[in-house]
């Protein structure tokens, strides 16, 4: 059975995947935006996506803060490896 410790590690890794994945996508989109042949309409849509990616990064960072808070509260009262109260 997956332990509480492993669950917190997985959760942290998922947040990391979101921030890094969005960051990489932002960089790549930013480069696309420098392409002069793009229409104004397409540029506008790419800017909208960039803005959303920023929001996803912020949300993942906030979610991680909550996960850490939860982690600290749970670890105070429960053994994270056997899942029983201390």
């Amino acid at each position, binding site marked *: 059975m997956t332990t509480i410790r492993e669950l917190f*590690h997985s959760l942290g*890794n998922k947040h990391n995947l979101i921030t890094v994945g969005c960051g990489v996508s932002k960089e790549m989109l930013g480069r696309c935006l420098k392409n002069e042949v793009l229409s104004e309409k397409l540029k506008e849509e790419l800017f909208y996506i960039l803005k959303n990616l920023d929001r996803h990064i912020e949300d993942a960072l906030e979610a991680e803060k909550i996960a850490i808070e939860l*982690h600290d509260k749970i670890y105070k009262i429960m053994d994270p490896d056997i899942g029983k109260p201390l």
Partner: protein
Amino acid sequence: MPENKVKLLIVDDEGGIVEWITRIYSEKGFATFGATDGISAVELFQKERPHITVIDIHMPRSSIDGVETLKRIKEIDSGAICLMVTRMTDKDKVEECRRLGALHYITKPLTLDELDKVINSAVSVVKKKG
């Protein structure tokens, strides 16, 4: 591969992270290498001698964790520049990495801005070393 490129090794048991970071830094002009396991990272280090190695401390899917990977790399080259990726909850392991000679720590979740800052700072150290 041109000799003057800074060699960067990314070690993380999450394949997506390795793929994305190596891709972005290749485009920034680095010679990049990636490993999803500590043992392969040590072998790759031995073979390629990267200037900078970024290691995730927690690698449950790897045969050895990030601290052990750092330790083995430092045994090969005590002057190796290693940056450790940690979580807020890793205080005890961070202390161990400090003792083993890691240069910097970056806290997960990573943002590319933060990663850029520590990698650029490590590049300055590489350049000073010549």
